[in-house]
C-alpha cells in the first residue's frame, strides 16, 4: 500500500487509532456493500450457469434487458447534453433566480422516485393528466409507454452530470475561453476545441454515474411504465417480478447482470482516468 511510508512516519502513539479506524471502515463497507453483492453473485451462480441460460432464452427477459439499455442510453444522452448546457449556464453566467435553479437541480436526489412517477402521471397521464390528454389526442402516448419511462429516468439522474461538471468548469476558469475568442474562435468552436476537452473527465464521470443510475432505476419507472410484460417491463421490474414469483434463480441472475454492468462502467473509468490531472 502507498500509505505504509506515511504510517511509518506517524508518531507511535497514533497508530492504533489509525488501525481501528481502518478496520471500522473496511468492516462497514464489507457488511453493507461487498458481502451482499457477493451473495447476489453466488446465488446467481447457485445452479451453475443454468439460471443465465434460462433468462437469456426467455424473450420477455431479453426484451426487458434491451428496453432497459435503450431507455438508459437515451436518458444519458439527454442528461449529458442538458447537463453540460445547464452547468455552463450556472458557472459562466449570472442571472436572477440562479440560486433557486441551483437548489431545484438537487430535487431529484431528495425526492423519492415513486413521487417522481406519480408527479409525471399527474401531468402527462393519458386520461386525466394536466397535459396528457392533449398529447394523446395528438397521437403521443407518454404514460405507460417508453417516452414516460425515459422522462422518469432522465428526472432521477438529472443532477449527476451537472454535479460532476460544475466544479470542473469552476476550476478551469474562463480565461482559456476568452483567449480562444480573442484568437478568432466563435462560441461553438470555443466550446468544441477548448471547453469540452478541459471538462472531458467530469463529463465522462457524470455519464458513467448517470448510466449506472439509469440502468438501475426502479420506483419511478414502475409507476409510469404500467409494467406490461414484453412491452414496458424493464430489467429491474423483471427482477422484482421473478423474485415475487419464487423464481429466485432468475431474479438473482438478472440482478447480477444489472450490477455487473454498473460496476464495470465505474471500474473502466477509474482505470482510464489519468492519475494526475493538471
Amino acid at each position, binding site marked *: 500500500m502507498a500509505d505504509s511510508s506515511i504510517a511509518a512516519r506517524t508518531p507511535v502513539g497514533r497508530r492504533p487509532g489509525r488501525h481501528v479506524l481502518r478496520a471500522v471502515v473496511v468492516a462497514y463497507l464489507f457488511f453493507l456493500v461487498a458481502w451482499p453483492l457477493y451473495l447476489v453473485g453466488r446465488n446467481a451462480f447457485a445452479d451453475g450457469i443454468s439460471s443465465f441460460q434460462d433468462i437469456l432464452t426467455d424473450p420477455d427477459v431479453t426484451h426487458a434487458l434491451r428496453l432497459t439499455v435503450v431507455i438508459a442510453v437515451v436518458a444519458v444522452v439527454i442528461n449529458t447534453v442538458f447537463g453540460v448546457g445547464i452547468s455552463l449556464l450556472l458557472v459562466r453566467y449570472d442571472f436572477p433566480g440562479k440560486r433557486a435553479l441551483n437548489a431545484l437541480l438537487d430535487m431529484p436526489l431528495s425526492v423519492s422516485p415513486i413521487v417522481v412517477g406519480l408527479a409525471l402521471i399527474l401531468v402527462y397521464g393519458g386520461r386525466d393528466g394536466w397535459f396528457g390528454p392533449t398529447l394523446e389526442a395528438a397521437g403521443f402516448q407518454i404514460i405507460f409507454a417508453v417516452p414516460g419511462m425515459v422522462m422518469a429516468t432522465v428526472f432521477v439522474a438529472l443532477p449527476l452530470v451537472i454535479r460532476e461538471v460544475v466544479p470542473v468548469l469552476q476550476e478551469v476558469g474562463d*480565461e*482559456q475561453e*476568452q*483567449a*480562444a*475568442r*480573442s*484568437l*478568432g*474562435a*466563435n462560441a461553438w*468552436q470555443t466550446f468544441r*476545441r*477548448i471547453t469540452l*476537452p*478541459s471538462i*472531458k473527465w467530469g463529463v465522462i464521470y457524470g455519464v458513467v454515474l448517470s448510466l449506472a443510475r439509469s440502468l438501475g432505476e426502479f420506483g419511478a419507472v414502475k409507476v409510469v411504465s404500467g409494467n406490461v410484460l414484453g412491452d414496458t417491463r424493464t430489467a429491474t421490474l423483471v427482477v422484482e417480478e421473478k423474485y415475487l414469483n419464487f423464481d429466485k434463480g432468475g431474479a438473482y441472475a438478472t440482478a447480477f447482470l444489472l450490477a455487473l454492468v454498473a460496476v464495470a462502467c465505474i471500474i473502466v473509468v477509474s482505470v482510464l482516468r489519468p492519475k494526475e490531472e*493538471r
Partner: protein
Amino acid sequence: MSIEISHVGKRFADFVALDDVSVSIPAGRLTALLGPSGGGKSTLLRIIAGLERADTGRVEIDGVDATALPPQQRNVGFVFQHYAAFKHLSVRRNVAFGLEIRKRPTEEIRRRVDELLALVHLEQFGDRLPTQLSGGQRQRMALARALAVEPTVLLLDEPFGALDAKVRKELRDWLRRLHDEVHVTTVFVTHDQEEALEVADEIVVINEGRVEQIGSPDDLYDRPANEFVMRFLGPVTQLGDQLVRPHDLRLAVDPADGVPGRVSRITRIGFEIRVEVTTADGQSVTVTLTRNEFLALNIETGTDVRLRIAPDTPTTQLSTHAPTLRTALTPTH
C-alpha cells in the same frame, strides 16, 4: 492600426471602473497603461479587446468602429497575466490555434508556427504540454500564440505580473526588443512604474477610472501633471508645501540660502545614502545622495544643514489634504 478611445465609461454594479476616458493610442508604438490596482486600466484593455463591453463611449481600432464587435472579429492579440494556455494542447497546437480557426493550409500553419517558435525561443519545446514549461516560457508561448494571427494590435494584461523578479526583468527587455522587430501596435497594462518607464514609448497613467496624464516616460517623470503622477512615478519627499524627488534636493553645510534643518538619521542603501533632515518647523525631509556627495559634505547625525531644491527639477504644489495619501501611494523599491 491606431486605437481611438472616446468617452468610454464602465460600471460594475456601484463601482465606477472607467469614467469618461478618452485616449488615443498611436500606431506602431509600445504604450503602457500604468496605475494602481483597481484603477481601471485592465478594464480599459479588456474593452479594447472586446472581452468587456463599455457602457458608454466608442472604441475605434485602425479606423473601424469596434464598439459592438465581438472579440473574435476584432483581430487583436491578447496576452493574459496567468497565460491562459490551452492545457490540453501542445505548445505547437497552442500557437497554431488562431491559424487553424482561420482554416489556413496545413503547410502554411506549420511554417508560420516554426517561425514564431523561433521568435520566442521555444523551438525545442513544440511538442511539450504547457504544464511542462516554466512561467516565463508559458508567457512567451502565449505571446507567440497571440502574434500568430497577425493582430492589428497586441494587448498584454500585466504580462509579467505572475513571474519572479529576475524572469520579469528578462522578459521585459525581451518584449522591448521584440517590439522593435515586429512593430505591431502594442498596449500593456502594468502597475509597476519602473516597468512602464523602462519599456514603453508612451505611458497613460490611469487612476480611479480616469486618465491622469498621457506622455513619454521623460514627460511624466520630468513634468508630472499633478501630485498623483508625481507620487506614483517615483519616490517623493515634502519640503514646505512642495513635493520633490529626494535626489533633487541639495544639502549644504555652510550658512547659505535654503531651509535650515538638522540631520536626524543617515541610512546607507547600497550605492545611495538616505539622509533624513528635520527642519526648524518639525518637518522630516528625506534627501538621497551618492556616496561621493555624502563624503564631500562630511555630515553626521546632528549636523546643522541647509536644504534647497535643485534648479529645473520637477516639483508639485501640495494640496491641503495630501499627507494622508503619502504612505499609500509612494512606490516601493
